[in-house]
């Protein structure tokens, strides 16, 4: 059964199969519901991808050196660290964060009246790396030798798990799409099997009068494929409407509010209805040929 032959409507072939109200409605509903879920899985996957990229980009290229030392040695160690960083390949710039800036960083947790001067807080040195990057292990060893109170925090420790989590979330989203496609195929196969079983007398009559398997299969496959296409189209549009109505990032911020599609990404869900039709085509074709194999 080639695609042009399948797509060209055959009024007679379509009519030989009796109207199968329940199974046809079940197919359309299944495809619609699955397409609805698939749009959200797709949105989740794409948002996770964007998040992974954003976290990686935002956190990459910077690092912090934390210096804990007695107050008498603090300034000397800060100076030693800055001097060391100036001679370290791969470091673009470095600066010590002053007390006012440090207080501003702590203010959200401890309030504006925090007596920074009286607390034994560590000093922070922020560095920016070049495109080539620096040897973090070599830097750690040099810091240990020249400024024993300095500890390098290159953000890798907590950036990588976040990026990994986002990447896995994207993978889970894609896996969900595969599962949804599989479940759609299974449901449409069940519906097609029910329709075929209910229409066995019709199929026997068609075989008796000389219908080839391809003719009979086409009559069923066409019906189920078009039902799936229609149902999935409706489900996709509803889900896209739902995604479009989610709050915007600039209104509330956060991960969930960034769940929508962006730019040409809005075209991606439109692939789902043809995909559902393809799944229905394959599932019904398989079920129909298997049923016919048991008949003479």
């Amino acid at each position: 059964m080639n695609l042009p032959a399948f797509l060209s409507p055959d009024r007679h072939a379509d009519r030989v199969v009796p109207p199968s109200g329940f199974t046809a409605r079940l197919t359309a509903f299944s495809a619609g519901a699955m397409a609805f879920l698939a749009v959200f899985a797709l949105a989740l996957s794409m948002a996770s991808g964007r998040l992974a990229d954003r976290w990686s980009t935002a956190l990459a290229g910077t690092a912090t050196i934390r210096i804990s030392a007695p107050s008498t040695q603090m300034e000397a160690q800060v100076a030693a660290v800055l001097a060391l960083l100036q001679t370290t390949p791969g470091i673009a710039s470095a600066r010590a964060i002053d007390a006012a800036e440090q207080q501003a960083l702590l203010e959200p947790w401890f309030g504006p009246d925090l007596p920074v001067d009286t607390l034994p807080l560590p000093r922070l040195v922020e560095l920016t790396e070049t495109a080539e990057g620096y040897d973090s292990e070599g830097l750690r060893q040099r810091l240990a030798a020249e400024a024993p109170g300095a500890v390098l925090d290159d953000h890798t420790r907590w950036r990588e798990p976040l990026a990994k989590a986002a990447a896995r979330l994207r993978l889970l989203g894609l896996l969900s799409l595969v599962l949804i496609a599989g479940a759609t195929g299974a449901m449409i196969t069940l519906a097609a099997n029910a329709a075929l079983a209910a229409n066995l007398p019709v199929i026997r009559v068609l075989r008796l009068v000389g219908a080839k398997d391809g003719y009979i299969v086409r009559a069923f496959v066409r019906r189920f494929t078009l039902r799936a296409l229609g149902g999935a189209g409706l489900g996709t549009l509803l889900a896209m409407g739902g995604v479009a109505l989610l709050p915007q990032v600039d209104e509330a911020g956060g991960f969930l509010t960034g769940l929508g599609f962006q730019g040409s990404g809005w075209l991606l869900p439109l692939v789902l209805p043809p995909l559902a039709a393809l799944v229905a085509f394959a599932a019904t074709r398989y079920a129909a040929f298997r049923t016919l194999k048991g008949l003479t």
Partner: protein
Amino acid sequence: MIVFENVAYNYGGGELLSEVTLKLAPGSFHFLTGPSGSGKTTLLKLAYAELRPTSGRVTLFDRDLRSLSRDDVAMARRRIGVVHQDCQFLDHLPLATNVLLPLTVANRPTDPRNLTDLLTWVGLGSLSDALPPQLSGGERQRAALARAIIMDPDVILADEPTGNLDWDMSLRLLTLLVELNRLGKTILIATHDLNLIRQAKAQVAARVLRIKNRRLQLAGADL
């Protein structure tokens, strides 16, 4: 046309047909008789490839049944018109569409005048829009005959075609089959109605075959 050579058929519970040899020559008229359960329907099913022989060889239009693919079987069936005792139709389609079904599935053009002539010939001219469940037993048999011959088949196989009909309607159907034979069609009718056979023999040179003890034999003057 259709040739059986030493054909046997086993239903699993024992042999139903054994050493059946039969040749349906073009234009011949055969009756097949025997008691209920003797294998008449099975023999007909073998003749239109609904069943495959357990042993022996069935040849349809010079091709061994064993070598036929499913599509080949479909093509062969377009040359064989089958009329069953319990005729099956597509109940959601009107009579005319049902009768045209063999042409439809073969993607052949249909001439409305031919259809009207055919339905008139079988006495169903006024029922072309009726749905099959609305038809009486006799009307269904004649509709099945119309469907069987609309493709202008070479062979017509009828399995107890008068089983649900009164005597007048049986004679009418028989007359239609005899007319088809005169037009050159090969006819094989399975029936246990000996009166029908006697009536037919007055109109056409028919051979009468009988299944007895699983074997096919030519019936003699004991009919």
